[in-house]
């Protein structure tokens, strides 16, 4: 039995597609939002004249002007808080934190203000704010520039946490997030920006409450999100050649988690491996594992396994960084181990 888990998977039909990168899809999403709603504006370090540290907002300053494409001083707490305040009084800010590594400086505003204001005020106020940030390792940026904390942020009630891993989601999640009355964090994994593919010409909003099955399979469920989706899909393809048929679930939204999609798939395949770029202990992969056990314990044929990032501040040297992160080979090894073990 299988439930439809997402409307985000585009069906191969007669739609016109354009070739573009994840970065361009993101930029198109911002442009669309700016055109569609005058209350939307973009604010963050170097989003304007520099064009965005990952070039996502390149060209937007010229198109929309400095009132709506706001370069901020280096002051993460102030400008994230400013986004919260502006949202409170009716604007629809998109705040860009250059990378998740710097978001710690704004965490008080995110956790103690953005995530609590609706509840603390008894529902009188809401914070329709979108915070975008780049996340992840893999570019030899070492210990202070390689965090993957999206799963960690998913711990916080009051927030929604999105991790677009496909062009459709890069293109479509922002608008849905902006329509949401509550603060939404969008994590863009840095290794995805140059990912290229075909995107339907009329690609638009996607829903954000369901996980997506990115590959159907019967033997085991691989569960992942964000930057590790491509690696996981590759592992699944290579495992297919070994006659191990994996289902691949892209969580898409880390908060709230789509428990149904996970439990339904694992109940059918009876095995699960969670792939997560977060540090292992206390990562979202642990939560996924716990929910599988809570929801599908009696269907499981082997323990849920996890492929996570080693518990080290990410080292600079390439071979060590590679060894620290989930890789196609380590994913494959975990799958083989799961399939080999039996209750």
């Amino acid at each position, binding site marked *: 039995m299988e439930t439809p888990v997402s409307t985000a998977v585009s069906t191969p039909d007669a739609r016109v597609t354009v070739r573009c990168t994840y970065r361009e899809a993101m930029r198109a999403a911002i442009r669309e939002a700016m055109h569609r709603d005058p*209350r939307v*504006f973009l604010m963050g370090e170097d989003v304007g004249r520099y064009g965005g540290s990952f070039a996502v907002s390149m060209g937007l300053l010229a198109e929309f002007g400095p*009132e709506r494409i706001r370069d*901020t*001083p280096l*002051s993460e*707490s*102030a*400008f*994230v*808080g*400013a*986004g*919260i*305040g*502006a*949202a*409170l*009084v*009716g*604007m629809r*800010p998109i705040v860009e934190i250059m990378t998740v590594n710097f978001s710690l400086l704004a965490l*008080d*505003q995110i956790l*103690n*203000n953005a995530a609590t*204001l*609706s*509840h*603390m*005020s*008894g*529902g*009188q*106020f*809401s914070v*329709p704010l979108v915070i975008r940030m780049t996340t992840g390792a893999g570019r030899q940026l070492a210990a202070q520039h390689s965090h993957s904390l999206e799963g960690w942020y998913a711990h916080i*009630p*009051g927030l929604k946490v999105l991790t677009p891993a496909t062009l459709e989601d890069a293109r479509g999640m922002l608008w849905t997030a902006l*329509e*949401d*009355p*509550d603060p939404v964090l969008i994590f863009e994994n840095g290794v995805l920006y140059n990912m290229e593919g075909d995107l339907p010409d009329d690609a638009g909003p996607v829903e954000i409450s369901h996980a997506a099955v990115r590959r159907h399979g019967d033997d085991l469920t691989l569960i992942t999100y964000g930057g590790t989706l491509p690696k996981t899909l590759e592992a699944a393809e290579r495992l297919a050649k070994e006659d191990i048929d994996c289902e691949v679930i892209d969580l898409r939204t880390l908060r709230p988690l789509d428990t149904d999609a996970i439990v339904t798939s694992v109940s059918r395949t009876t095995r699960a491996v969670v792939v997560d770029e977060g540090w292992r202990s206390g990562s979202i992969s642990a939560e996924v594992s716990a929910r599988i056990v809570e929801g599908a314990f009696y269907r499981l044929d082997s323990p849920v396994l996890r492929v996570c990032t080693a518990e080290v501040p990410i080292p600079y040297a390439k071979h060590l960084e590679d060894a620290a992160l989930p890789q196609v080979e380590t994913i494959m090894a975990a799958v083989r181990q799961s399939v080999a073990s039996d209750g």
Partner: protein
Amino acid sequence: MSIPAQAPGQVAATSPVSKEHALELLRSMLRIRRFEERCVELYSEARIRGFLHLYIGEEAIAAGVMPALQSDDPIVSTYREHGHALARGIPMNAVMAEMFGKVQGCSHGRGGSMHLFDAATRFYGGSAIVGGGLPLAVGVGLGELMQQRHTVTASFFGDGAVAEGEFHECLNLAALWKLPVLFLCENNRYAMGTAIERALANVDVTAKAAAYNIAAEAVDGMDVLAVEDATRRAADAVRNDGPRLIEFHTYRYRAHSMYDPELYRSKEEVERWRDYDPLVTFPAQLRALGYLDDVSLTAIEHEIAVEIDAAIAYADAGTLEPVSDLTRFVYSETRPA
């Protein structure tokens, strides 16, 4: 201007004041004072719980600031905000019910004393992280400006908040973007048990504002007329060309929260400041002007007592939210317009 702890804070008639308005100011201060005195009793009866930070001694600020603002000017406050809330016009019933944890409270019983909120009066809380309201206020100001609302966002914070990084980031951002934010520092000389001299290398908050090119003024926060006058001038300036800061020199007569052993200051110091109690000096001034006598004062006191009694009755009669509603409001129930 800076008020040394020793020098008496003279009530300067900085602006001519009508009898009617003067009595309104007195009433506003007295209402806060009496309200909080009753809160103390209610706290010892455990009918109010959690943290309770009293504003007693500082009433001249809330009472003087609010009339100088317009009704659509947003307010961002701290956890010591009963005075701000009442002077702003949040109904006393709703404030009391909030502290009783009732659904009829201004935050639905979810916030308590530290988190009073009220959409009707644009009162954006009640923030209990020191300095945490400043970024919010800057954002409110930004949002108002971008929507051309021509309001002034009033941001209250204590002397303790001045040392936090947020103060710096926010004053800079507000000045850089010329945001319509009025920074109101309630300098009561202490952050919990830490005297300002042990918290700031340079205790002159107005001097700090200068580092951001923000015009600032120090004002006797025990003088309600001076407060109102300064606020009116500053708010005008903000409405026209960006942020201003006022440092109000004031004093809290009570413990930081409900209990603290007050090891950090002497009884004499507290007593010295009693001479500047606005609820002593202002009535005296009004009597001298012939605006106030025993009869009229008693009438005001009575009115206030009646209001407080009613508020307690209202809060008492209020309902507790069903436990099944626990997770309400974590996410908003309606999509925004």
